[in-house]
């Protein structure tokens, strides 16, 4: 094992033993949600971090996945794990169809299109009362059952989420470390040059959107079966902002950046509860200042610091690249 991957394994080890040391149910609850956010930010990262197209509609797939999985389980009695998988496939189809229209656009036009689709989906779900129960949302969504084990406690949900999050991160890491991931980066860095070496914008944006859509759909299913409730609240703008914030402050275009961002910003709003009324204004300020101060996020900063530490301890070791992985 090289020094570059060491922090990742340390983080994983800490995550694995965390429930042994944490006794607070509430703290565990936030940790479970952090797992969902990791799945979401990883998926969005492919499109927004690697290809560089800002999507403000990623939470739509969270909602669609949540509703699809919940409805399959409640109305058709599909086993929850299967329902979650089917929900993931459903969001793949949705992101493909939306992508057909939106990937003809770039920049701000693309941004508006994603906002537009998010709002339309939200209104359609809210108004299809017969199926979705409208703004009241769906209640009493059954918990997942794995080999006869009901995933209902905070700890079992946490481990279930951890497994899903690790799979997501691993798959995204493998995609990024391949010709597909290089094509993403090429499109972000110089679209015309990328075209000239045979890379198509429409094709790879679609790949990123579909993979991201799949994980968002799974995350939606996970969320719905964990909280036993889903409403269109998850498709509101504040969710988009949260996911984007995690992505940007963690470090878009890196694999571990959004993971750190998701963990940090699952807890920051909770920490800010102490200041009650000031919470959201402070949140807005943090958003502005951190993005202006660190446009590339935490990852390059951490990566450089880690490189220096490794170099001091073992000068011969290969230090991690400044860009980080």
């Amino acid at each position, binding site marked *: 094992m090289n020094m570059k991957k060491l922090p990742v394994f340390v983080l994983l080890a800490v995550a694995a033993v965390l429930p042994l040391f944490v006794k607070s149910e509430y703290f565990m609850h936030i940790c479970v949600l952090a797992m969902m956010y990791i799945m979401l930010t990883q998926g969005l990262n492919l499109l927004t971090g690697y290809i560089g197209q800002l999507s403000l509609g990623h939470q739509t797939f969270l909602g669609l996945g949540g509703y699809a999985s919940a409805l399959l389980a409640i109305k058709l009695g599909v086993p929850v794990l299967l329902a979650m998988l089917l929900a993931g496939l459903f969001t793949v189809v949705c992101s493909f169809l939306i992508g057909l229209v939106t990937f003809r656009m770039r920049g701000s036009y693309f*941004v508006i299109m994603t906002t537009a689709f998010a709002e339309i989906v939200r209104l359609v779900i809210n108004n299809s009362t017969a199926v979705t129960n409208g703004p009241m949302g769906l209640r009493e969504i059954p918990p997942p059952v794995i080999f006869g084990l009901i995933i209902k406690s905070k700890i079992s949900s946490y481990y279930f989420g951890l497994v899903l999050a690790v799979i997501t991160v691993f798959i995204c890491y493998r995609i990024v470390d391949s010709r597909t991931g290089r094509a993403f980066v090429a499109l972000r860095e110089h679209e015309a040059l990328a075209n000239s070496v045979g890379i198509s914008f429409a094709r790879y944006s679609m790949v990123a959107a579909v993979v991201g859509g799949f994980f968002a759909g799974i995350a939606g299913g996970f969320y719905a079966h964990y909280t036993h409730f889903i409403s269109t609240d998850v498709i509101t703008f504040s969710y988009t902002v949260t996911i984007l914030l995690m992505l940007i402050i963690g470090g878009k275009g890196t694999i571990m950046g959004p993971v750190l961002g998701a963990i940090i910003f699952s807890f920051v709003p909770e920490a800010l509860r102490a200041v009650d009324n000031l919470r959201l204004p402070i949140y807005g300020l943090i958003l502005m200042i951190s993005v202006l101060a660190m446009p590339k996020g935490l990852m390059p900063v951490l990566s450089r610091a880690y490189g220096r530490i490794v170099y001091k301890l073992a000068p011969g070791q290969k230090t991690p690249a400044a860009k980080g992985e």
Partner: protein
Amino acid sequence: MLEFFQQLANGLIIGSTYALLTIGLTMVFGLMQILNYAHGEFYMLGGVVAFWVTQALHLNFFLSIIVTVAICFMLGLVFERILMRRLYEVPIVTTAIVTVGLSIFLQNSVFMLWGNVPRTIPTPFPLKPLTIGGLTFTSLRIFVLIVTIAVIVFTQIIIHRTKLGRAMRATFQDKDVAAMTGISIRKIYALTFAYGSALAGLAGVLCGSYLTISPFMGSSVTTKAWAIAIVGGIGNIPGAIFGGFLLGVVESLGAGYLSAAYKDAYSFIIVILVLVFRPNGLFSKKEL
């Protein structure tokens, strides 16, 4: 048939405020390439400031409009100086996040200081509606329409008949060339942003006099103004005006004849349809 015309007229009045909102947004985007997600917050501030001015300073409605617009113009200058200026050369992702942050900050600061009770700016206009050719209007709504049209005309005069407007258009065409001819790009940016904020503030006062004011009234109009700006062609003022009226009418007729539940979706349906068939908007891009 009469109902149709009534809806149409109501749509045009709402549309006029959309047009006001979008003019500022589209100018700022066209000139500085800033995707300003906090534009609607100036609309909200307009409403809040006007309410405060009428209540605390006991100014009458007409005077409060003027004071509010002036305050919003100043606020625009201040925000341009401390924030927007840092966004001129950064990627769109950063701009979007920072302005979203500004929007969250402003909304919630106002909420904290002011609460969330819906309020309406008092006006001296009688509540009794007028009837013109079978259509009923309150005199307030007619006043709103007249003011917005006057301001739209005023804006066109500034842009096409004054030295400042010429400098703005030159900057829009090619800022490097404009800078070489001695135009201060910084000044143009600051004035454009402040003017856009003032127009949004005016729209806020006008809407706040016949609708209600709340700290969160800005968020839905920002995305609507964006949709209109894109339909009209980014940076295109006649396009923004047309798009504003179009959206007002579509929303009004759509709510009346199709479905009121989807009223807030019409702007998005329009923008998707327009972009699918005409990726650059209904009008050409380069025309301030």
